């Protein structure tokens, strides 16, 4: 069986600057992979390239989901195919009501799957229930998307979207940064609820402590636009102890 996600010798540039310089990575269905790496190593760039952001140009290699190349797919098509990106910096949408945004996203998935649009009242109940698990209160749900949310609230709102969209492949870009200890636990529990033999995740983080909560099958170190080392969860501990020294940047 083809891996759920396969990244083959991926090269990508932003503007004229090459950032990703030959990434190889395969994630099988049900697996959780973590990516660590120094600031500026290309982690967020990789997440944007996976999500299909305009301006992040693939100059070589391929990205396949279930064996099918995603390169020709627009970001919305990728999302409807089951891809989700929790943003490192979630975007504020002044004037766009939270509930109508969540409903539009869920309906887009349902229409693609040939299902009916959600019933408005049922949907409000569903959102409230999932929000409660993430300690998101009604006031936040009523506001415009991400507007006036604290850093930690924005991260929890990303996980709420993930919980509603039930993606097969989630990329979480530093969802732990900016979270206090309690919020980290809440978010991790939220993520773990979605852990499923049919779903995979790619978790980008700087901190080993997240990986205590969301235990990965593999840990990769990205540096200078390439994956330099791959190991089990003990690799995260090693990075925590000794930093990125000894990880060969020039390879």
């Amino acid at each position, binding site marked *: 069986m083809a891996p759920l996600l396969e990244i083959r010798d991926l090269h990508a540039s932003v503007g004229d600057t090459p950032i990703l310089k030959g990434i190889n990575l395969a994630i099988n269905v049900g697996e959780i992979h973590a990516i660590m790496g120094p600031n500026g190593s290309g982690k967020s760039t990789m997440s944007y390239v996976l999500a299909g952001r305009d301006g992040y140009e693939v100059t070589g290699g391929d990205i396949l989901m279930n064996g099918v190349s995603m390169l020709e797919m627009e970001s919305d098509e990728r999302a*409807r195919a089951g891809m989700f990106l929790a943003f490192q910096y979630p*975007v504020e949408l002044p004037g*766009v009501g939270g509930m109508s945004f969540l409903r539009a996203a869920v309906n887009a998935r349902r229409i693609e799957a040939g299902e009916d649009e959600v019933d408005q009242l049922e949907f409000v109940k569903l959102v409230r229930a999932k929000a409660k698990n993430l300690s998101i209160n009604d006031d936040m749900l009523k506001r415009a998307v991400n507007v006036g949310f604290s850093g930690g609230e924005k991260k929890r709102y990303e996980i709420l979207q993930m919980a509603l969209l039930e993606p097969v492949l989630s990329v979480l870009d530093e969802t732990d940064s900016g979270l206090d200890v309690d919020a980290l636990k809440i978010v991790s529990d939220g993520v773990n609820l979605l852990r499923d033999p049919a779903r995979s995740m790619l978790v980008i983080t700087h901190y080993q402590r997240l990986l205590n909560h969301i235990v990965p099958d593999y840990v990769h170190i990205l540096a200078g636009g390439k994956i330099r080392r791959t190991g089990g969860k003990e690799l995260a501990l090693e990075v925590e102890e000794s930093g990125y020294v000894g990880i060969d940047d020039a390879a």
Partner: protein
Amino acid sequence: MSVSTMQPNLDQLAGLTGVRAGALTRWQETGWPHSRVEQWRFTRLASLEKMDLRPASAAAVTGTAAISADLPKNAAILSFSNGVLDVADLAVLPVGVKASFLNENDTALAALAASVPASHPVSDLSLAVMTSGLHLEIAGKVDVPIILAFTGDDNGVSSHPVVSVKLADGASAVLAEWHQSAVGLSAPLMAIEVGDKARLDYAKVQHDSAQSAHLAATGLTLGEGSVFEGFQISVGGQLARLETHVTLSGENADCTLSAIYLGRANQHHDITTNMSHAKGHCLSNQIIRGVLDDSARGVFQGKVHVAPDAQKTDGQQMSRALLLSRKAEADAKPELEIYADDVLCAHGATVGELDETQLFYLTSRGIDRDTARGMLISAFLDDAIDSISHLGLAAMLRPVTTAWMTTSNHSEAGDQ
């Protein structure tokens, strides 16, 4: 310029007296302003001269059936077809509203002539031609919205409805103009006087046909402690200018005059306002939003004038335009003329595009690009529409922008 080459052709117009005769003389001397005239620099009228127009003399057979609006349910509708009032409609006017005809009411006609924008081609031309002239006097609290519905089917005619509305001291009313006409030129002339401590909620929708020109001139006078809450949407027509001159003539008057223009193809929308703070302690606020697609052009000219002793004036004006296409163009010309020293006045104008990061955030959730664009445009406009406090008027205006949006997402592929 000889009379017969001017548009519309006024050869049939004869026997005018009083203010209308004066207006005709001024019109014949000046005609349509040349583009060198500063106030008309952004909006050129050359295309009008190429039309072959005569003033409308009869209503269209279709009546107001063409109106496709969510008009407030309990409204009293006065229909003007080709600029000619259907007199039978006056029977629907609610208690508290008294109608008369301007050609039989010299006092009201003189007051109107004094209140509409001075040295303005529409003031002169429409006062002279006056396809219908209606005067409404409103006393007490009138909750039933009064809708002036303008339709027309003849693109060879120009329509010149003239309406004056006078709210007595302490009165309140709801007034809307709905323009959905296919005449060659619509040139409505309005004078609105809001008495002391009176309140008027007002909306105007310019939804004329794609080939029509719409040139409106409105004079608005606000008395002491009065409130005017007005909103205009310009979405139809080939060439449109909605010009409003406001005089805050008593202290503590509160004037909101916001507007949205929505343009596509090669439409031209012009919102021009002249806010004159003649007395102190008044508040004026204008939120202007424009969305332009294709090769459309939008203009906002807003002058705020504060008289020497109009202290404690608060005059705010903010114009923002959103360009959806590289070929669209927006101009804003805010002007502050302040002769008092203790005032709070601010204006701002921005022109921008949709934010790519916001679009990406939406599409990364599976929302298609067209829908995502629509969501961001709505958000941009809601900011202005949310300021309308009269629910019936808001409910009438909202579908106009929504309808525009559902047909606006066609051009993106072409200009990338």
